Every structure is written in C-alpha cells, then in structure tokens.
C-alpha cells in the first residue's frame, strides 16, 4: 500500500522515470533470460523455453577445449597491457602538458592528442592497414628503403599484443590525460609555491606534489579498468583484426570468440555458455577489487 501511495504522491516524477525504466527492463533485464540458453541445447524453432535442458554440457564443451584458456588469457593480458600502458602514458602526458608554459604549444598538442578518441575503430583499422599492409604499407616501404626485409604483419600473431597496445595508447592517452589534467588543475598553487621557496626542482615537485595528489584519480581509473578486465573491446579487436584467422592465437578475446560462435557458427548454446562465464567472472572481479579498494582507501572504492 505504501508503495502505491508513494507512487501516487509523486506520479509525475515516476512518469518521468518510466521510459528509462522500461528501457532498462526490456533491453537490459529481459535479455538476461539468454543466460538460460547456456544450460540448454538451443534450437531456433523451440525458442528459449522449449529447448531441451542439457545441464552443464555446453560449459564442459567450452572448458574441455583449449579455447577457454586461450581467450581468457588474451582478454586479461591485453586489457592488462592497455590499463598499464594507457594510464601510464596518459599520466606522463598530463604531467608534461601541465609543465608546458607556452599556451599555444599546449593548446595545439592537446587538440592533436585528443583527436584519435573521436574516430571509430573501423577508421582506425584503415589507418593501421595503411601502416602495416605488405605491399603499400608505410612500415614495409620504410624497411625496404633502409635495406631491410618487409614482413607480412598480418601473419605474425606474436607482435600483435604490442601493436594493439600501441593503438590503444594512441587512441586513449589523450582522453585520459584530460581527466588527469583536470585533477592536476585542482591542486592548490600554494603547494608548489612553498616547494619552490624550499628550492625544489620541477622534477621534485612532480614526484612529491603532483603524483601523490592525483593518486586517487589514478586508482579509480585503474579500478574501472580492472573491474572490466574480463570484457574485451569488441569494436577494437573485431574492427582491426576482423576475420584474420592467423592472428587469433594472440588477439582472440572472449567477446570476439562468442561473437563468432553466434554469428558464424550459429551455435547459440556455446556462445551463451562463454558469455555466462564472462558475466560471472566479471561480477566476481569487480566485487573483489572493490573490496580491496575499500580496504586501501575508502574514498577510492566505487560503491
């Protein structure tokens, strides 16, 4: 009763929330029924409810193959590289940009480093291709011009974690550096003033004032990344690697793997088992790291 009274009292407010709430129910909660398929042998004609229960068979199938280890490792390894290198370089860039006194230089540099954030992964993929393709690519042309041999980069899985990390840093360092810069700008000038009076060099000021005072921002961003470490960036990996099978050993992440299982093999049940594994692992990860964050520093935890 009290619920109805509350809703009646604020009917206009709840009416405002209704479209958003409906959206969440339809597009976020209803599809969760898809997790059931992981325990069924899904057939389109029978639908989710009518298909036969098979218990954990789909999971067994996934875990028995070497695939589960490969895609899990790739997902975590690549995301780990992205978080460490991406945030590290962004932090460096923000600190450096903050030290630059020429406003014109700073403005132009900032505009350039932020630009890659705005373009789609397919455009990035085209740019990558311009650099790496075997015959017309800039890298091979440069190598050959210097008397070295060109390589077929799209057949060499070993170097792709490095390539993808470079691409990630290129695309996101500017974006993260703006978040860091916002935090740095918030630091009171008094600290630097008194440090200068004490004779601290610029480098010492960075190490002893700037970095400790934006530590929390760094922790929050790292936690946001780690919390999603089981989720590969589908747009990035599929946009750049696409269906280049020779690169799968080092670039295939859980998201691209389940996508292919669904769209190319049409195996709903297998794909669903993989996704359920991912969702559960993702949930567990975020719980663990949030608890750790709360232990270290109460302000840094996410919830």
């Amino acid at each position, binding site marked *: 009763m009290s619920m109805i009274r509350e809703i009646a009292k604020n009917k206009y407010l709840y009416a405002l929330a209704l479209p958003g709430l409906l959206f969440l129910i339809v597009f976020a909660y209803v599809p969760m029924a898809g997790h059931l398929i992981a325990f069924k042998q899904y057939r389109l004609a029978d639908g989710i409810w009518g298909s036969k229960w098979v218990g954990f068979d789909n999971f067994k199938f996934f875990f028995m193959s070497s695939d589960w280890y490969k895609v899990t490792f790739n997902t975590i390894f690549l995301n780990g590289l992205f978080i460490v290198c991406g945030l590290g370089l962004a932090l460096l860039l923000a600190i450096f940009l903050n030290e630059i006194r020429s406003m014109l230089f700073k403005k132009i540099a900032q505009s350039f480093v932020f630009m890659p954030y705005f373009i789609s992964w397919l455009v990035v993929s*085209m740019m990558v291709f311009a650099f790496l393709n075997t015959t017309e690519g800039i890298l091979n042309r440069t190598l050959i011009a210097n008397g070295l041999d060109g390589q077929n980069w799209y057949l060499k899985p070993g170097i792709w974690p490095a390539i993808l990390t470079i691409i990630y840093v290129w695309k996101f360092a500017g974006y993260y550096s703006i978040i860091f810069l916002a935090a740095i700008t918030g630091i009171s000038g008094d600290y630097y003033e008194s440090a200068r009076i004490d004779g601290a060099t610029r480098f010492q000021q960075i190490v002893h004032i700037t970095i400790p005072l934006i530590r929390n921002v760094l922790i929050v961003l790292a936690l946001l990344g780690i919390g999603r470490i089981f989720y590969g960036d589908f747009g990035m990996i599929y946009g750049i690697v696409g269906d280049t099978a020779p690169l799968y050993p080092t670039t295939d992440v859980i998201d691209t793997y389940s996508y292919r299982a669904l769209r190319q093999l049409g195996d709903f049940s297998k794909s669903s088992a993989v996704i359920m594994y991912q969702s559960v692992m993702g949930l567990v990860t975020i719980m663990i790291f949030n608890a750790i964050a709360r232990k270290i520093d109460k302000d840094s935890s996410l919830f």
Partner: protein
Amino acid sequence: MESSIQHVRSGKAIKVKTDRSLSEKVFVVFIYAFSGAFALACFLPFWLVFINSFAKESAIKVHGYQLIPKEFSLNAYQYVLHGKQIASSYLVSTTVTVVGTVLAVLITAMYAYVLAHPKVKYRNVLSFLTYFTMIFGAGLVGFYILIANWLHLKDSLWALILPYMLNPFFAFIMVSFFRTLPYEINEAATVDGANDLRIFFRIILPISKPVIATVGLFYALQYWNDFFLALLFIDNYKLHPLQMMIRQLISNINMSAYVGGSQTTYTQPLPTYGVQLATVCLTIGPIIFLYPFIQRFFVKGITIGALKG
C-alpha cells in the same frame, strides 16, 4: 604557478628571476620534445588518410602511402560521390545519430532527474537497478534473440537506435549534475503551483544546458561511430550506415557494385585505395569539422565527471 603564467602573457617570461640549473633546462626540453612527438604521432595518421585520398591510385601503388603524394587526383572522390551507396549510408548515419541522440538525451535526462530527486523514495532502488546492468551484462545471445526474434527489428533502423538509448554511465554523469542544483528552485516553483513535469521541462532542462550538451555529444559520437549493431542486425546494404560501408570496402568483395549501385558500370579501373581513403575522409569529415566545438564540450564534461564522479 599562476604568477609565472602571468609573466608569460605579459611577454616577460625570460626576465623572471630563475636560477635554472642545466638539468632543469634539459628536463624542460625533454618535456617539449616528448609532448610534441606524441602529438605529431597522433596527428600523422589523419594527415596520411587525408592527403592520400587525393593521391593518384597509381602513385599509391608505386610509392606506397606518402606524406606528400607525387601525383594528385580527384578520381576517388568522383567515384565515391557518383555511386549510390555513399548517399544512402550518409542518410542512414545522420538519421540514426540525430533521432537517437535526441531521444537518448531526453530519456536519460528525465530518468537521471528522478534518480537525483530527494522527494523520490525509491530512487536508490532505481539507482541499483541501473548500476547492476553495468556490472552484470545480459550478454550477446540474449540481446541478439531479443532484437532479432522477439522485437523483429532485423534490417530496421530502430535496431541501430533503441539499444543505446539509456547509457547508465551517462545517466550517472547527469545525476551528479542534477544533485548540484539548489533544491530551493524546486520548492519555489512548487509553491507557485507548478507540478513536477512543468518544473522539469520549464526550469530544470533550460538550466542544464552544459551537461545536456556534453552527454548529447557523447551519445552522438556513439551513434555515429558504432558498427556493432549494424554488424549484428543489418544485412540489407541499403540500410548500411557509413561505418558498415567502410567495413564493406575493407573486405573488398565486389567493391564496384557496392559503391556504385549494381547498374552502374565504369570504364576506368577502380581506385581501390583511393575509394577507401575518400570514404574514411567523408565519414570523419563532420567530426573534424566540428572538432573545436566538440573538444570544448568534451573537456568540460570530462572535467565535471572527473571532479564529481
């Protein structure tokens, strides 16, 4: 720090009494070199795509991609712009972006306002329902079945619009903005007899322009750049957005029929690289064109988010 900036502005930077040691100077040079090199590396791919889209196809084939092409040609653009695909893809992308952004901003703002409203008893329940979707996803299979089999939205533009209409992350950015608004506004309007709908649309929305602009840009960018939804749900090439057109050009199958429309026949050989690069330029054109404006709002929005969230 402020004082030294003042000095730079008044042109007396060098005169400020500083006893910079050598290592200090090296450090400053390093900072400029590093930032400058990184900025150039960020810009270079844009330049290469832009300038080589005007290169003669044979020049690319012989010399590879060049910083400044040996021979220029407008061939690629003529080819792309004559075809039917670019026009229909542009129309699809623009429609999806405009309709999607307007609806998404409206729904998100309405929802976030309620989440931030102290009068709403169940706002924490709503917040949790929203937050939970960020940490436990439905996953691809359920999502695919929902759109394709239950809502029957395959090969419909709604499949490109509806799924992105409420992004929990953007909603929480708006919530933190609405929380900063003084509640007295609300009370004063209530005393004057305005109901909550009126308060929201007549008072709250107009004073929330900064956050609406920022979140709107986030949504617009997401709609414009997305290819995931089109990849899943659009098979009819007439409904391909620009991003799908690029993807199609990368996979390179039957390019001339795809770009031109099946009836068109060309006498010249197809400038494959040129067509790809020209299409990329036409796709990122609006973003680059609006970039100064976009950049300002994004920096503002990210700064709000970083300090509050």
